[in-house]
């Protein structure tokens, strides 16, 4: 149900990387209005989580973590538990990117940042949450 992930750097006031996991590509023309709305909030948001309803039933959850904002776009609204789980994912992404991205340098390797983003999100999608696993296996 996650469609894409977009990472913003607050210092540069721009999109650092995007990655598509579903059918909605952040680079699509149809998504440009939504992207502008997400970017506006992602850059302004100092810390915390912002839940943004978008066109076509999409929902963006924006997590502001230090100098990075992680926006995750879903095909439907997600519940509180899922937001907490995705917040963890966002924190992992921010930590991973923080290790390799220097906002003061012009020599950043965005492909490495994308690799970090993809690895973390794909792992999260591959492995179910502990609660779901407990319900599936035992409860």
């Amino acid at each position, binding site marked *: 149900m996650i469609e894409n992930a977009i990472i913003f750097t607050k210092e540069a006031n721009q999109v650092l990387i995007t990655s598509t996991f579903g059918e909605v590509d952040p680079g699509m023309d149809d998504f440009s209005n939504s992207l502008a709305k997400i970017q506006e909030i992602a850059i302004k948001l100092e810390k915390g989580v912002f839940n943004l309803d978008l066109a076509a039933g999409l929902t963006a959850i924006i997590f502001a973590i230090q100098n990075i904002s992680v926006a995750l776009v879903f095909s439907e609204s997600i*519940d*509180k*538990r899922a937001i*907490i*789980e995705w917040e963890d994912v966002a924190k*992992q992404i921010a930590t991973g990117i923080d290790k390799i991205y220097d906002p003061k340098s012009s020599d950043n390797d965005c492909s490495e940042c994308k690799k970090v983003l993809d*690895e*973390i999100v794909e*792992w*999260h999608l591959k*492995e*179910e*949450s*502990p*609660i779901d*696993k*407990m319900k*599936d*296996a*035992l*409860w």
Partner: protein
Amino acid sequence: MADLPSDVSLGALVTVGIVTVAVTIVVIFLFIRYFERRRLAALTLAVTFAFWDLGAISVFLGSLIHYLRQPIAEGLSQVVRYGFNIGYAFSAISNIFLVIFISQIFAQSPMFRKTYKMVPLANAILNGVTIGLIIDTIIADPLNPAYPLEQTIYHLIMTFVAFLLLLFFSIVSRGRVELRWEKAGFSFIIGSALAGIMIYLMLALDRVVTLFVPGFEEGYTPFLYIGWTFAILMCTLAYAGYVMPTFLRRLFKEEKDLG
């Protein structure tokens, strides 16, 4: 230095017998759950408790045979010592499967993403050391194997590691669930893990007191009984937390969920 007691007390025999029955019941329920769901994590957990059960059975059978044959004449094997040593070896195998279970259920955690299967593998090797130490002990004195304090402490540390992992991840997961019965499930698992730690802490204290405190040279200090009581508690909480029987689920379900 004092050694393990040469006589088995009836109280200890009965207590270990009760523990054995309690673990066996939990194991049966866990295997029933596995055959209902056919999930690998359920099987891993059932195997974890099955090995712990084998440990309890070893201690019980060792104690029973010893009790029936006592007083043990010099030159004859002190069977209870085999029971304890083999029991600890099975407990070490149980630790291995417990960490595998944790890595299956909590696989989403960054710890397991970054290390893949290294954590359960390293844990298996370190618990293998316990088994190696036990084999060495038996080889050193096949008739009358000791159970050195270092082995007890080492096994205690390995058990701490396994249960602390379970505790940490269960506490984190408990904080994320919304429904009361899910919270209750993780609470029971947390309680079971705490009781698990207390078992080995008490058994280690029993050895320390037996070895160093005058008047307890005969063994079977109160810590041993407290330890086995924690084992019964661990089984009860494990049954509630892992099996989550229907009556318990209903008890903790919110009214909105019942509809």
